[in-house]
C-alpha cells in the first residue's frame, strides 16, 4: 500500500498534528500515513475524536490557529501537472498557492449544509463566487456555468435554484448546492466530511448516488470521512480505519469488510445493528459496561394488553411564513394527521419516519408537552384507564410518573449547572413522595442500574462522555418508576460503539423492569433491533403498521419500500440499488401509485397485524387483500 506511485493524487506521510493547549501540546494525530489514488474513493473511518476531521482540515489548510502540524508531509500531485509534487505542510496556509488549490483543485463539503452556507447570500452567488475566483469567469458566462452545475447536481430548475437562499431549500437540496460549490471548478480531489450524516435516509442514498455519478463524470478522487460503515461499503475503493489519531487498519474495501484483522475494526463491524440479526441476538459492544440488575422486580405487567391507546390524534402547526396585518396567518401544516395505534404492555413499539414526518410530535403529544388539536389517548395503568388528554394540571402531575421521556441530544437535555444527583432527584422532588435520604439512595440505585458509578453523583454533566450522559438521561427517566418510556432518537447523536452500549442497556432495562417503550427513530436498523412492532410515518400519517418481521420481509407501502431500499448496508454483497433511486423525495404522496394517494385512504389490514394506508377499491384491482 505504501509504494511510491505517480498515480497518487494525495499522499500523507507520518503526519502529526497537535493542538496548542494552555501550556502544552496535545497531539491528536499521531503519525498517520495514507494515500488517495487518482479517480478513486478513499474512506477514512473513525469515531468522533479519532482525528479524522483534523486530517481533512490539515489537507485543506483550514486548521484553526491552535492546530499545529508537528511532523510529516502532505504531498499533493495535481493531475494537470503530474511531474510536480507540492508539500502542503511547507506552503503558507493563507498564501497564494494554497488559495488557488483550495476550491480550485481541492473541493470540500461538510456535514451540516445549513450552517455551511451563508444565510444571506443566494446559493447561486455563493457557487459562482468560486468560479469567478479561480477561473475569472464573470457575468452571463458565469451564471450559465453555475446553472449548468446546478442541473448536474440534480436541481430540476437551475435558473430558479440560482436565486434561492439556503433557508428556502430542504436539507438534501442544500447539500446539493454545497456539492455544486465544491465541484464547480472541477477539482481533482473532493474531501467529503460526513457528507450525508445530517440527511434523511432516502436523501442520503440520493446524495451518495450523485457523488458516485459526478466522480465518474469528472474523474476526481474523493476522500470520504465518515463513521458510517454502510456509506463506506457503498462508496469507497480503499479504507483507512483511524482510532485515537492512529491508523489501525487499511486496505481495499473488500479486505476490510470480508477479512477484518484488527479487533477494533471487527468490533466496529459488529457494533452496528443490521437486519440479519436473529431475534434476541445482542449487539457486540467495544467496551462492555456492566450494569447492575435491579434488586427487585418492580412490577408484573399483564403482557400483550394495550397499555397506551392512541386514537385519531391530530396536530396542526401554523406556519409563520406569511404575515397578515394582525398576527400570524398563513398556511397550516398537519404535523400529525389522524394517527391511531396501540402500544402493548411490555413491548417496544417503533415509530419510524424521516424528518418532518411528525414522529417526534406524536411523542410530545403523548407526554402532553404539546397540546393535541383532537383525538384520544388512553393509558391503562394499574389504577384503571386514564384519559391522558382530559387531565387537568393537578391530575397531569400525578399522572407524569407513568410516562417518561429520553431525549436525542445528551448534551442539551442535561442542565450544565446541576450535579448528576440534582438531575436525578429533580423528578422525585417535584413528585414529593420521597424524603431526602430516600432520594439519595434512589439516585445511587439508578446510577448502578444504568452502569455508572454512584460515586459520580456529585459531578456535573460536562465531565461525562456522550454515552455516559445519555445513561444519565435514562436514569432520570427511570427515577419515577415509569411504565412507559418515550425514547426520542436516543442514540442518533452517539457513536456506533456507544450506540450499541445504550441500545443493549435499554433492552436489558426493558426486560428487568418490565418497561414499555415508544421508540422514535429515523434509523431503520436501530428500530429493527429494538422494536417488535413498527409504524412508519410520512407527512403526519401512519402509512404502514406491522410486526417487525412483516415489515422487513414484505413491506407493502411504496414509502416503506423506498425507505428500506435506501438503507446502506455495511455489506459488500448488498449494495444500494442506485439505478432504482429517484431524485425526488420519497415522502411525496404524488409519487406513490394511485391507490396509495389521494382522498379516501384508510388503514387496511392486509394480513394479521399488518395494516397499510391505502384506498379500499385499490385492493380488488391489485389483489393484495388477505
Amino acid at each position, binding site marked *: 500500500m505504501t509504494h511510491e506511485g505517480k498515480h497518487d493524487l494525495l499522499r500523507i506521510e507520518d503526519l502529526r498534528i497537535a493542538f496548542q493547549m494552555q501550556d502544552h501540546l496535545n497531539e491528536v494525530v499521531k503519525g498517520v500515513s495514507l494515500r488517495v489514488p487518482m479517480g478513486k474513493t478513499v474512506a477514512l473511518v473513525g469515531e468522533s475524536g479519532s482525528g479524522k476531521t483534523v486530517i481533512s482540515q490539515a489537507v*485543506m489548510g*483550514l486548521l484553526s490557529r491552535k492546530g499545529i502540524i508537528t511532523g510529516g508531509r502532505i504531498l499533493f500531485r495535481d493531475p494537470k501537472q503530474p511531474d510536480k509534487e507540492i508539500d502542503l505542510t511547507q506552503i503558507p496556509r*493563507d498564501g497564494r498557492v494554497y*488559495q*488557488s*488549490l*483550495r*476550491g*480550485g483543485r481541492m*473541493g*470540500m463539503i*461538510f456535514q*451540516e449544509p445549513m*450552517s*455551511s*452556507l*451563508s*444565510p*444571506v*447570500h*443566494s446559493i447561486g452567488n455563493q457557487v459562482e*463566487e*468560486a468560479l469567478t*475566483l*479561480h477561473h475569472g469567469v464573470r457575468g452571463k458566462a458565469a451564471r450559465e456555468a453555475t446553472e449548468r452545475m446546478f442541473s448536474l447536481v440534480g436541481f430540476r430548475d437551475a435558473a430558479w435554484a440560482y436565486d434561492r*437562499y439556503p*433557508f*428556502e431549500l430542504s436539507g438534501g437540496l442544500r447539500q446539493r448546492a*454545497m456539492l455544486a*460549490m*465544491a465541484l464547480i471548478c472541477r477539482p481533482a480531489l473532493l474531501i467529503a466530511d460526513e457528507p450525508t450524516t445530517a440527511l434523511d435516509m432516502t436523501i442520503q442514498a440520493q446524495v451518495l448516488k450523485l457523488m458516485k455519478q459526478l466522480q465518474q463524470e469528472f474523474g476526481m478522487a474523493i476522500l470520504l470521512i465518515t463513521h458510517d460503515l454502510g456509506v463506506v461499503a457503498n462508496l469507497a475503493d480503499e479504507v483507512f480505519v483511524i482510532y485515537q489519531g492512529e491508523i489501525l487498519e487499511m486496505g481495499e474495501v473488500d479486505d476490510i469488510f470480508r477479512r477484518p484483522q484488527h479487533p477494533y475494526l471487527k468490533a466496529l463491524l459488529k457494533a452496528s445493528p443490521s437486519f440479519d440479526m436473529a431475534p434476541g441476538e445482542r449487539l457486540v459492544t467495544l467496551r462492555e459496561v456492566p450494569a447492575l440488575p435491579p434488586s427487585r422486580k418492580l412490577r408484573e405487567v399483564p403482557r400483550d394488553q394495550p397499555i397506551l391507546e392512541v386514537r385519531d390524534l391530530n396536530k396542526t402547526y401554523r406556519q*409563520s*411564513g*406569511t*404575515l*397578515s*396585518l394582525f398576527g400570524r396567518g398563513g398556511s397550516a401544516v398537519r404535523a400529525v394527521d389522524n394517527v391511531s395505534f396501540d402500544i402493548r404492555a411490555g413491548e417496544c413499539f417503533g415509530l419510524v419516519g424521516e424528518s418532518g414526518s411528525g414522529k417526534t410530535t406524536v411523542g410530545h403529544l403523548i407526554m402532553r408537552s404539546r397540546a393535541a388539536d383532537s383525538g384520544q389517548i388512553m393509558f391503562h395503568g394499574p389504577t384503571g384507564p386514564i384519559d391522558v388528554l382530559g387531565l387537568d394540571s393537578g391530575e397531569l402531575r400525578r399522572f407524569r410518573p407513568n410516562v417518561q421521556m429520553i431525549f436525542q441530544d445528551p448534551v442539551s437535555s442535561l442542565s450544565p449547572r446541576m450535579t448528576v444527583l440534582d438531575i436525578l432527584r429533580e423528578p422525585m422532588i417535584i413528585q414529593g413522595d420521597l424524603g431526602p435520604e430516600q432520594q439519595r439512595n434512589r439516585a445511587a440505585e439508578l446510577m448502578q442500574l444504568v452502569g455508572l458509578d454512584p460515586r459520580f453523583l456529585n459531578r456535573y454533566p460536562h465531565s461525562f462522555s456522550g454515552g455516559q450522559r445519555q445513561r444519565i438521561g435514562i436514569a432520570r427517566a427511570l427515577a419515577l418508576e415509569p411504565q412507559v418510556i418515550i425514547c426520542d432518537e436516543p442514540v442518533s447523536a452517539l457513536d456506533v460503539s456507544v450506540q450499541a452500549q445504550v441500545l443493549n442497556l435499554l433492552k436489558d432495562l426493558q426486560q428487568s423492569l418490565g418497561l414499555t417503550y415508544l421508540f422514535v427513530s429515523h434509523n431503520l436498523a436501530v428500530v429493527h433491533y429494538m422494536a417488535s412492532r413498527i409504524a412508519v410515518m410520512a407527512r403526519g400519517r401512519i402509512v404502514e403498521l406491522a410486526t417487525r418481521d412483516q415489515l422487513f420481509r414484505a413491506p407493502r407501502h411504496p414509502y416503506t419500500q423506498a425507505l428500506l431500499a435506501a438503507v446502506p448496508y455495511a455489506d459488500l454483497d448488498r449494495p444500494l440499488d442506485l439505478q432504482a433511486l429517484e431524485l425526488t423525495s420519497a415522502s411525496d404522496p404524488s409519487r406513490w401509485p394511485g391507490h396509495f394517494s389521494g382522498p379516501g385512504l384508510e388503514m387496511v389490514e392486509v394480513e394479521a397485524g399488518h395494516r397499510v394506508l391505502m384506498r379500499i377499491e385499490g385492493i380488488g384491482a391489485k389483489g393484495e387483500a388477505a
Partner: protein
Amino acid sequence: MFTFLARRILIMIPTLFITSVLIFTIMKLPPTDYFETYVAELQAQGEKADLGRVEFLRKEYGLDQPATTQYVRWITGFFKGDFGYSFEYDRPVSDIVGERLALTILVSFLTIILTWVIAFPIGIYSATHQYSIGDYGLTFLGLLGIAIPHFLLALVTMYFANVWFGLSIGGLMDPKYFNQPMSWEKAQSILSHIWIPVLIIGAGGTGSMIRKIRANLLDELQKQYVVTARAKGLPPGRALRKYPLRMSLNFFVSHIGDILPTLVSGAELTAVVLSLQTTGPLLIRALQSQDMFLAGSFLMFLALLTVIGVLISDILLALLDPRVRLQGGSTR
C-alpha cells in the same frame, strides 16, 4: 414585503397612542400645575402675581377643562405642528426648541459618525486578532471610555484646557451668535467649538460600540460558513468582508433604531456641564418647573423619533437580510 411594511406602520399607531397617554398622565400626576407653583413661588418671595393673566392663560390653554379634553387638544395640536406654549419662557414651544434642536442634531450626528468611524476598524481588528496585544490594548482603551462618565470627562477636559491652554471650551459657539441668523462667522465659531463635545460624548459610545462589534464578529467568525468560504479559496480579507462582516451588519442596522432618539436627547448632563446650547438642559429645566407643554411635546417628539427609528432599522434589516424579507421576521 408590502404586508410587512404595512404591518410595521400600522403597529406604530397603537404604540404612539399608548405612549402619548402615558406622557400626558405623568405630566398631570402632580397635584399642582405650573401656575400654582409659579404663584406660590412669587408669593413666597413676597411679590404679587398677576392673577388675571394666570387665569387668562389657564383658559386660553384649556387647563380648566377636563383631562380628556386637554389631552385631545394637545395631541391634535401636536400632529398639526402646534406644540403648545411654554409658560416659563412665555413663547410657543416651537420657537424655543428651534435652533437648539438643529444644534443638538448636529452634535449628535457628528458624534455618531465619529463613533462608527473609530469603532468599526478597531472592532474588526480586535475580533480578527483576538487575544493579541493589540486586542488587549484597544480593549483597555475602550473600557476606559465606557467606564468614565461623560460629564466627568467634560469637567476634567474643561479644567485642563483652562489650566494648560487658558481656553474656555464651554458652549457650542460664541454666546453672541446664539439665536442669530446663520453667517460665516457663526459657522466658524460653531466649528471651532463643536469638536470638544463631540469627542467627549463620543468616547463612551465608541468604547461600547467596539465591544459590541468585536463580540458580534467573534460569534460570526466561529460559524461554519466562514470555513466554507475559505475552503472555496477566498483570501482571508475578502472572506471576512463578504461573509461574517455582512452578517454582523445585522446587529449594526438594528442599532440604528436606538440612534434617532439619542440624536435629540443624548448626553444631557454633559450638555449642562459644558453649557451646550442643545435641547438636553432645556428638557431638564422644563421637567423641573412643570412647564407641561414644553416637556410633554418634547417627550412625545422623542417617542415619535424612537418609533420611526425602529421602523427604519426594520426596513433596512429586511433589505439586508433575506430571512427577514422572505420569512417575515423569524431569524433562525
